């Protein structure tokens, strides 16, 4: 059984834990570098990316997390995608640079612009995508592949072992995103 950590500094880590358990993972909340070491893969949940960044810096977790990404898969949803990106705008902030994408935070607008969309994918059929104050992926590098698009922008992408979604599959009962991540472990 694979052990998948969920970075539990802040955000909807509990929803990810349950989603991972539904696809047969042993899910572990991760708040320290030692806990991170026990994991075969890691999920960076939704939440506030600024809050997570402050805590990553303050608790000296930023470098261990980047090193983790050099050897093992990481999946980031929404705020997690922002953390994994190469560059971040709106406003600019530090990121892990594990996926060659550029993201703009809160790019759809405020909470009133949050939305649930049914979007088609080639490999997983129609999926329900919950966007909450979501970022938009403005640029993808050549080695990044796009799994799903919404409204002309990539919303689900992967590069090597890593994967991002700008939406929240953990808030739906559809497990295809988490299953795809498990297949990378």
């Amino acid at each position, binding site marked *: 059984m694979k052990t998948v950590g969920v970075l539990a500094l802040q955000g909807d880590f509990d929803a990810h834990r349950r989603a991972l358990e539904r696809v047969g993972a042993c899910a572990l909340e991760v708040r320290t570098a030692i806990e991170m070491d026990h994991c075969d893969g890691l999920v960076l949940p939704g*939440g506030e990316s600024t809050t997570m960044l*402050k805590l990553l810096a*303050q608790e000296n977790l930023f470098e261990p997390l980047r090193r983790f990404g050099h050897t093992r898969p990481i999946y980031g949803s929404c705020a997690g995608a922002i953390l994994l990106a190469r560059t971040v705008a709106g406003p600019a902030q530090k990121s892990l640079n594990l996926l060659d994408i550029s993201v703009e935070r809160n790019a759809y607008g405020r909470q009133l612009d949050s939305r649930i969309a049914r979007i088609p994918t080639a490999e997983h059929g129609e999926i329900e995508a919950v966007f909450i104050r979501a970022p938009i992926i403005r640029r993808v590098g050549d080695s990044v592949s796009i799994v799903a698009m919404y409204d002309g922008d990539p919303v689900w992408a992967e590069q090597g072992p890593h994967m991002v979604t700008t939406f929240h599959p953990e808030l739906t009962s559809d497990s295809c995103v988490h299953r795809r991540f498990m297949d990378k472990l």
Partner: protein
Amino acid sequence: MYLSDQFRLKIGLAEMLKGGVIMDVTTAAQARIAEEAGAAAVMALERVPADIRKEGGVARMASIRVIREIMDTVSIPVMAKARIGHFAEARVLEALGVDYIDESEVLTPADEEHHIHKRDFQTPFVCGARNLGEALRRIAEGAAMIRTKGEAGSGNIVEAVRHMRTIVKEMKQLTVLGKEELVHESKKLAAPLELVEWVAANGKLPVPNFSAGGIATPADVSLVMHLGAEAVFVGSGIFKSEDPERRARAIVKAATYYADPLKLLEASSDLGEAMRGLDVATLPESELLQTRGW
């Protein structure tokens, strides 16, 4: 209603705030300090509860100019308070585009019988509650997040503890009852049967359950999170303390590491003075904020 896309989006933002701290701010400069310290969201209001308590007068929705400045200053969600029952203030806040509205007992109530019918709004609402019946009535009206009321502006955790323990105990009790007993409980709680049955089946509220009212130290945060709070609101506790920046950072750290005593020790060290605080037991009934709302 509970499975509609709109309600799921409202709850969705509350889910994103879990494990975080929502800080009361009265200016854009304070909002900047809160964001820098790692707040998951800020709550814009005219005066912090401790000042409302001291200065008296009618406490209303904050000035639009200040809320707008705060929204322009920070990238985290911005909440604002409307008076209980004041649906017109809430409409103004919705038009302004705030991310969450707190129908709050901290402000002077505008209606002594009716809360806002929150389902009619696209903007999500958070409401205070002291017990399960109150929480479920607010959810029935459309609240997508509940916070225990505590006693705002007191710097005293005792009421927040009482309210969280009460709600959690009342939920536990429902889980062992039979269907016909739940009908009777619904009557006693003055809450819709559908919601009472949901809580009985799941042992928790159908929306996130946060804590507020009296949190002043990292250990206070840890205490209420152990008791079942999924995130915390801190009002006067930060900007009425000696060193707001440092205390704000410590409170954020405590929300993440609430179950880790060594990290809490770090968070609790070198903090400067906490806010002064009040003995709630000596406050006359007329000065309690928690009894507003029903």
